[in-house]
């Protein structure tokens, strides 16, 4: 895959991760991101994924994956077992979000979190004018078939980090093809944060 065709959130994560570090990707899916990171950054990589078919695809890409649930899969790791723990587009699907994030912050020196922004203006318009649960490119599911359990905005997450004393080291706000710098909570479809305890 060419770099310029790579998903923007992958590119941001790629820039944030140091070469040669150890990475745990929680909810690694088909291993799209992780295999890219391994190739570019020479990582020691481990994925955790609940879907059996996704695991098969990860193995085909040469990745090491555990068949496990993010809500349970971390307790067995020691503190600071990884340089970085990635929760890209999975945080909103974790049942016990608070616990999972604390665990990720314990197991990794740093944690990268990426999630869809529920306060994107497109979502706001749909709620306001149509009175319907928004369906957007970053939130493509209808209310009855969504795997998402938490609907959070960029402001929500920043507030959460402040409340929990989590340090935000880096952040990036992205839309379809570019990064957003002004009013990210309105114009960004997703937020990416590099956090640590």
């Amino acid at each position, binding site marked *: 895959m060419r770099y310029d065709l*790579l998903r923007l959130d992958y590119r941001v994560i790629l820039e944030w991760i140091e070469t040669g570090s150890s990475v745990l990707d929680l*909810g690694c899916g088909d291993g799209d991101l992780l295999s890219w990171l391994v190739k570019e950054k020479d990582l020691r990589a481990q994925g955790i994924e609940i879907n*059996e*078919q*996704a695991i098969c695809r990860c193995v085909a890409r*040469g*990745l090491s994956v555990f068949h496990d649930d993010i809500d349970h899969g971390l307790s067995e790791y020691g503190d600071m077992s990884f340089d970085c723990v990635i929760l890209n587009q999975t945080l909103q699907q974790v049942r016990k979000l608070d616990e999972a994030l604390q665990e990720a912050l314990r197991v990794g020196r740093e944690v990268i979190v990426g999630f869809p922004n529920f306060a994107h203006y497109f979502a706001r318009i749909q709620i306001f004018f*149509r009175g319907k649960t928004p369906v957007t490119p970053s939130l493509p599911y209808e209310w009855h078939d969504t795997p998402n359990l938490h609907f959070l905005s960029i402001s929500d997450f920043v507030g959460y980090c402040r409340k929990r004393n989590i340090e935000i080291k880096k952040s990036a706000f992205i839309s379809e093809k570019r990064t957003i710098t002004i009013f990210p909570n309105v114009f960004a479809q997703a937020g990416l944060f590099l956090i640590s305890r």
Partner: protein
Amino acid sequence: MINKIPPDLPFQKGGGSQVNPDGGSMSLLSLLPKRTENNVGVSPKRVETSALSFESEKSQSIGVVKTQYFHFAQPPDELTLECGEKLGPITVAYETYGTLNDQRSNAILIVHALSGDAHAAGFHEGDVKPGWWDDMIGPGKAFDTDRYFVICSNVLGGCKGTTGPCSVNPKTGRKYGLDFPIISISDMVNVQKRLVGHLKIERLLSVAGGSMGGMQALEWLIRHRDRLGSAIVIATAVKHSSQQIAFHEVGRQAIMADPHWKDGHYYGSLPPAKGLAVARMVGHITYMSDVSMAEKFGRHPGEEKLHKFSAGSEVEDYLQARGNHFVKRFDANSYLYITRAIDSFDPSRGKDLYEVFRGIKARVLVLAFKSDWLYPASQSREIVRACKLAGVDTTYCEIDSTYGHDAFLLEVEEETHLIKHFLQRVFYQQGTTGGNEVREYEI
């Protein structure tokens, strides 16, 4: 959005139907940005839900194969067993498939389960039935003989060519019977190590096995970690539970209760066939699942029954048939010795498993099956947990199967996919020290 899948992968793209946000006809909606199909910016993680379609590759049998024999441990250089006793001479029955490359780096050792033997693949001259793991070993198969050199040997204590209780004791000129020393999984592995040395292979690409084979693979991984690049550990446990020992004990008691057993010295007269058949029946019950039994067996009321108390279920006929078939090919004393070795397997030897695993550089693939209640997935997860804590590069998959413990012989498609790719990675990355090398870290 569907995650992109490289075209070289044997998966079908499917599912992922797009939802249509435009339900109403309000004019304001036209002001909203159009959803783009080729959205490269942000897309939520989504795993395809369509069933995997594995490429039906041209795989074929390796054809006619022959068992070979390796003799070692001639007195006075006998093999010292874990129990302290010495055993020799020892004969090992083994088969090899494929070709060893010039670097001698493509050898894979297949280790068999309780009733297996060296004949893992291909056909013996004149046979209609192939080896016990023929679905997995051969050209284009999981253990691709076009690429790898595959070795399989009968375990120590077995009755299919390797020295065991039905072999002749050179000291007495009679078959060993119960004079055969107590053996362990570790002894089996030591014998395999000698065989591998005899074949002039310094380092195995992988050791793979299910059930008792998985235990041997674990033993290899722990005791001879520098001699293998990976281990494939299927449907096994690091230590037998009381329940697992209990099922074996019923089998052993059945054999020993058979009047023909005669304290193990039945050679030359009638064998304890009834006892061994019952032992096998118990085994078969534990290898299947509730669902697989329900699917396989019906009832046949009115027809001729096995005995007065038969309920006329096909499961009764099945067990009877499996038991009777087994006594023709297996030795009762071997059954006692091998089940005992399985039951006392404990490679952690009193330590925490992760401590024993620490420093292992080999890659590990652990597979379990959802409906396997004899070796439940929780036991595989125990192995995986230790790998996690020890920083061993591990992949774990719990395969959704209804076959019970038998699944490791039957879930060919999914196992093939996982094992084939796992081995490819190990094969092409061996010798390279890259970022994927397991780094040790303190807990």
